[in-house]
Structure formats: C-alpha cells, structure tokens
C-alpha cells in the first residue's frame, strides 16, 4: 500500500515538477503563472491594463493575419452562394423599393414630429455626429462568448459600455473590453447580455436576455402584458447607459416565451457604429 502511494507521488512529481527533454519550463511553474494571470484579471490598474492591452492588440493582429486565408475561402463560398440567390432577391427588392418610396415622405414627417415631441419631454436626441465607424477585424465564433473585435480602441476615445450599432443603426451590443487599437463588442445574443428594453406599441418594459444563440428573449415583464407577435423592441435607456429608442428587433411568441428576432444579422456584420455619447445635442 505504502509502495503504491510512493509510486503515485513519484509519478506526480515527475509529471508536474521535473522538466522533460527540451522543456524550458516545468508544468508546475506554468500552472502557477496561469493562476497569477487569472488573479490579475480581477485587478484594474494602469500598468496591468497597459500590459493586457499590448498582449491583446498583438494577438488580435496576429489572429487577423493568420485567419486571412481561411476567411478568404469563406468569403468566396459566401459570395458564390449570394450570386445564386441574387436574381430571386432582385424581384423582391424591386417591389420593396417601390413601397419604401411611397413611405419615405411619411417617415420624414414622423421623424420631424418625433424630434419635436422629444424636445418637449427633454429627452436626448442622438445626432449622427455621436457615432464613430469601426471595422470588424476578428469575428471568431466562440462557443462561450458571442462577441467580435473592432479595429479602434482607446486611441479613438472608445470606452467600456458604449453602444454599438450596425450600419442601419440597429442596436447590436456594447463595448466590454478596450485596448489601445482594438475593442471587444459583446453582442446582445450573448449569455452575459442583459439590456432594459421597451416593447411598442404596448409600452411594456422588460429585460432582453441573450442565450448564446441567434435570438434573445424577454424577461421580467408584467404578467398582464399586451405583447403580440411582431411588436417592435427598442432600448428603454432606463439603466442610464444607452440612449432610448434604438431599434433592436421584433417579438415572436414561442411556447409562452417571448423571443426577440433581431433586425440585424449578427453573423454578417463587417462595419459598426459606436456611439461615443459625448456630442449629445440636448446635454
């Protein structure tokens, strides 16, 4: 029995403490370094943030370069598929375009009226000047985190918590990690994403929770709500971080749960607008 225990101890020591042939570090030392890295993740100090930014920026650029061939092949495949679909879409778009032309004058009137009413209730009006456009440089489908990396960071005054919109100004997520030349955007579909929203036309307030898949669902709303299929979901701005009234998606009732189908296709985003939030007209 004692011999067995001794053998076990010797094997463990040999595996973790001794350096093998051509090994510069022992496993034990590297495990300790990993734990130190993990503990330092919780500490926010300037030198550590600089260190993290340098590591992340370097790896993002490296990953961007390393994934160029794979991304190139993917793009070719997607483009080929798109070309096949293009004729079908053309007819559909022509009909849609005619309809939109009819509606455009009506929308302008509503926008003007809306701005005037918002001024009356003293609410923020977002200006186009607030936005800063960025390119997505790394969009790796992580099973644990739905996010991507954009090519601007603290060098363009981007900060944690800033709103991120797609090119049609639909809400897609927020900034969660800022480096010197890059930032990470946490998408609304992520498991960690919880956004206060308002559902129109019923005016019901709720929390939009991501589940790590394509849609999200509404939580914490009143029991006697009047939400129906196809209702529009906007940011409510209740948490005081995001501006209110940014479109997110529309509701779909599935098995007594209220799912939200996003207006934006989160898998196909190449450019984003980040709301820098400093040039609000009314504040």
């Amino acid at each position: 029995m004692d011999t067995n225990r001794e053998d076990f101890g010797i094997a463990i020591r040999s595996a973790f403490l001794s350096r093998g042939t051509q090994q510069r570090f022992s496993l034990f030392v590297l495990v300790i370094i990993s734990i130190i890295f993990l503990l330092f993740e919780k500490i926010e100090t300037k030198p550590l943030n600089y260190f993290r930014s340098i590591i992340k920026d370097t790896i993002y650029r490296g990953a961007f370069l390393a994934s160029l061939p794979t991304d190139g092949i993917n793009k070719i495949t997607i483009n080929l598929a798109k070309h096949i679909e293009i004729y079908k879409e053309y007819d559909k778009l022509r009909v849609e375009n005619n309809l939109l032309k009819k509606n455009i004058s009506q929308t302008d009137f509503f926008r003007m009226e809306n701005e005037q009413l918002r001024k009356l209730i003293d609410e923020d009006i977002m200006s186009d000047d607030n936005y800063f456009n960025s390119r997505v440089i790394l969009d790796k489908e992580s099973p644990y985190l739905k996010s991507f990396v954009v090519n601007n960071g603290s060098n363009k005054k981007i900060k944690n918590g800033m709103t991120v919109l797609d090119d049609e100004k639909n809400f897609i997520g927020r900034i969660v990690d800022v480096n010197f030349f890059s930032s990470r955007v946490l998408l609304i579909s992520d498991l960690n994403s919880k956004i206060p929203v308002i559902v129109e036309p019923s005016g019901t307030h709720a929390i939009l929770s991501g589940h790590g898949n394509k849609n999200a669902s509404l939580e914490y709303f009143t029991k006697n709500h009047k939400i129906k299929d196809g209702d529009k979901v906007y940011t409510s701005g209740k948490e005081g971080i995001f501006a209110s009234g940014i479109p997110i998606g529309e509701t779909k009732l599935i098995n007594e749960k209220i799912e939200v189908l996003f207006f934006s296709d989160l898998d196909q985003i190449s450019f984003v607008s980040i709301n820098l939030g400093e040039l609000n007209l009314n504040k």
Partner: protein
Amino acid sequence: MPTSFKQTKFRFLQLIPLLLLFYISLNGISVIDLKFFSINVHYILVYFWVLRQPRSLGYGFIFLSGIISDVVFGLPLGTSPLSLLVIAGVAAYVRTVTVRISLINDWISFIPALLIGNFVYFFALYFSDYSIDYFFLFKNSIFTFIFYPILWGAFTILLNLTKN
C-alpha cells in the same frame, strides 16, 4: 542533397503538431462547434502529443497557445492555459505510469484528463463571473471523448511518419 531534403521534411513533419496548435488557437477553431456536437481539438491535440511524443509540444508553447485562445475567444487570461496544462499534466502522469501503448489505454485515460481539464475550466470561468452554458460544456466533453479515436488515428499516422 537528398539527405538535406529528407532532414527538412523530417523536421517539418515534427513541427506539424506545434504549427497545428498555434493555427487552431489563432483561428479560433480550438473548439469546433457544430449544430449537434462540439469537439475540443485543443484538448485532444495536447493530450495526444504530450502522451506520445512530449518533445513535439513544449509546455511553454501550450501555455502560449492557451493565452492566444483566451484572447481570441474573449475569455479571462489564464483560463485556457490552466486547463490545457492540467490536461498536459495528466498526460505526463499517464506516460510515466503506463508501459503498453494502445488506443484503449489512451482513450480510457483521456476520461480523467477531460474531466479534470473541464472542471478547471469551469472553476476559472465561474470565479471570473462568466455565465457558463453547462449543457454546452457537458456536450463538448462527451463528443470530445467520442471523437478522440478519430484524431488519435490521424495523429498516430503523423507520429509514425516522423519516426520513419
């Protein structure tokens, strides 16, 4: 001339595991996530090569590839290196105590490696206040175990080529 070509080819073949390790980390494909199953290629790669030919993958390189994976996936720095090094540790232990090499031996000893590795992963994420999809982690462990023999076969072919 032929000798130098042979040597270059031999060296390149020996470098393949290392290149593969960094390729999957940089491209964010260390966890292949498909609709019905997901496989952690990183775990299998590290376990196999540390078990069968430890000089191909240095522990320092495993640590570095884990750091790259964490940055690419947006996880707290140190999560993947810790779990990968634990996997490497179990593989090194199994190498010390095993005499006969066979697929069944490797496959069965991969179970504790996978369990301890994923436990460390879960533990690190839990204490970093990250929400974890438990079902995904479970599914990933099961399919990584199931797919081990397939990658074992491919890596064994590569291993034999480097030996020949």
